[in-house]
């Protein structure tokens, strides 16, 4: 009886692992395809797509596509721009949205519920519908920078950052997480005489690791994949991000090897960021039930 049970357990385990491996393959193979294709000349790349060779480093393998990609476009500049814009936006967004959520959850004030409802309602408004009004506003706003007071935000880093610092989804994530924190903690701190900024900084945020990771990853992906907005507001190559840069490779005859090399390079920051926050991200999903 005990043997049968052990066998069943082993079989279940084997089945579970087989399913997980299959799922892993489905998700990993596109990345493997991209990496392998980036090492092959176009002709071979296209021929290999019809067989398993597409996933193997076989044939005329070299780094020529990477060299050619750097010749065709300022790849390092595009990656730098995207990492800078994304990094600054993520940091500012976590700060501003967590503060907003803190105010919504812990501080009682008139109109709080109504305003939260309005913010959450923005989740259903696609960015495309506000892109043109936003462009018209951004093109006329003042900015004080190194050159003093200037008018119009076009062709800058801040035009790619500021409009995306606050957003409904990030506020929503923080609100949901903060609601699950024990209210006694906050009450005890208030009784002890702690101010709201002290409670935010010393009690709430130290407990917010998982939601910070989740919000950071989602924000990072959204920002790093920005295409329409930078296309509209950036006309100078010096400020272009990676997704607009991708279009450099789509000429009349597409250089697919270079496309794959470029994609492999621009995927590195995303993977690195995800791997860095992976544990906290999964913890957050497990604790809040929020799907990424």
């Amino acid at each position, binding site marked *: 009886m005990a043997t049968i049970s052990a066998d069943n357990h082993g079989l279940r385990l084997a089945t579970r692992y087989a399913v997980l491996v299959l799922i892993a393959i489905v998700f990993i193979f596109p990345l493997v395809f991209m990496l392998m294709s980036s090492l092959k000349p176009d002709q071979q790349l296209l021929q290999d797509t019809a067989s398993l060779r597409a996933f193997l480093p076989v044939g005329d393998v070299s780094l020529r596509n990477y060299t050619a990609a750097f010749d*065709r*476009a300022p790849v390092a500049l595009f990656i730098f721009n995207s990492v800078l814009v994304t990094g600054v936006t993520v940091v500012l967004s976590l700060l501003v949205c967590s503060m907003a959520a803190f105010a919504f959850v812990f501080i009682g004030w008139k109109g709080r519920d109504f305003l939260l409802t309005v913010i959450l309602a923005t989740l259903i408004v696609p960015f495309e519908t506000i892109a*043109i009004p936003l462009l*018209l506003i951004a093109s006329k706003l003042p900015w004080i920078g190194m050159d003093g007071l200037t008018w119009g935000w076009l062709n800058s880093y801040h035009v790619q950052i500021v409009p995306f610092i606050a957003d409904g989804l990030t506020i929503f994530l923080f609100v949901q997480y903060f609601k699950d924190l024990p209210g006694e903690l906050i009450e005890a701190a208030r009784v002890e005489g702690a101010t709201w900024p002290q409670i935010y900084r010393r009690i709430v945020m130290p407990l917010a690791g998982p939601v910070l990771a989740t919000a950071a990853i989602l924000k990072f992906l959204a920002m790093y994949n920005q295409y329409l907005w930078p296309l*509209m*507001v950036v006309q100078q190559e010096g400020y272009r991000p990676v997704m607009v840069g991708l279009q*450099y490779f*789509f000429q009349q005859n597409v250089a697919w090897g270079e496309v794959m090399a470029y994609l492999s390079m621009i995927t590195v920051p995303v993977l690195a960021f995800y791997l860095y926050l992976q544990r906290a991200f999964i913890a957050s999903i497990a604790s809040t039930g929020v799907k990424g």
Partner: protein
Amino acid sequence: MKHSNWLAGAAVAAISLGGAAQAQTTLSMWYHGAGNEVEAKIVDQIIADFNASQTDWKVEMQSFPQAAYNDSVVAGALAGNLPDILDVDGPVMPNWAWSGYMQPLQIDETLIEGFLPGPKGYWDGKLYSIGLWDAAVALVTRQSYLDELGLRTPTLEQPWTGEEFMAALEAAKASGKFEYAFDPGMAWTGEWYPYAFSPFLQSFGGDIVDRSTYKTAEGALNGEAAIAFGEWWQGLFTNGYAQASQDPADRDSGFAAGKYAFSWNGNWAALGALSTFEDTVFLPAPDFGNGSKIGAASWQFGVSASSKHPEGASAFIQFALQDKYLAAFSNGIGLIPPTKTAAEMTDNYKDGGPMAVFYDLTKAQALVRPVTPGYVVQAKVFEKALADIANGANVADTLDAAVDEINADIEKNGGYGH
């Protein structure tokens, strides 16, 4: 004394140089060729030559990737941020001119009298843009295929009739040697459809829109000729001569791999075909009853409506029209020079050159796409209709729906100024 003379001389030189530098007014320019090294080098050279040739203007260029260019211009126009000089795809120009993005060129039009018609961008009787090249499509095949299949080699003077073309496809199909007899280029979408396929419709006697008024597509896109075209088009796929959906890899290398007997492709792919098969030939479009037609007009230069220095911007464009630059573009990226004199300066298009036929094809058969601001919408409607018909949709119903959509758009926009 000698020392003070030297100092005085240096001061005068510095003042004159400073004065010259100050006198040069900067002209901004947007160009669609980012990522195309060869093209960028030629444009950079023209700009450097122009900037050095005079002391009034200094052109500074921003390059955009082609796929993102039109959206960037529209966004720039909305934000009031257009440059002085911009380039524009020929058929899109009327829309940008009508939308108030562009102003007429101030160039000596006698300079372009000898140009092919395609590169001249006229709208409302005024020259808004001018191209430094043109592009053309041809029926690409091999002389050996024609010989093996027992087919007459069509000429510019005597192209294949529609019946001869279909007989050629049937012969290729019956030979069993090819996966498909014909490769129309279904892997390419967007502008390829109206550019490459609307000339077939025009050869049948139809059109995307009624060019006599530009106020309706009724009769042009759903009349008898258009329905005959639609049925012919659908027959290409239902009879197995061509594939309705195509792998991009096959479009790139299918003809070279021997999958297709005939490929409908542009001059930009001609050198590749010639290097694969020495006996590659470029045949004129078949004549379906109203003459052989091919598309025309490629990218052209113009001046933005918001430019404060249209005379400077026009001066740059006029400077770029020199034969040596037209020839440089042709030698660099394989496009058709717009003048015979420039063509004679190129390796490929001079008399007897391997691609000289494209110059003749363009001169004899080219028909620009409908010259109307509504074209940008009409092109998309036409593309969708043709894709649907290729995939089995009812021809008459699909064309009727396309006409309704085009007419509704024309009406919504008050007739687009026609």
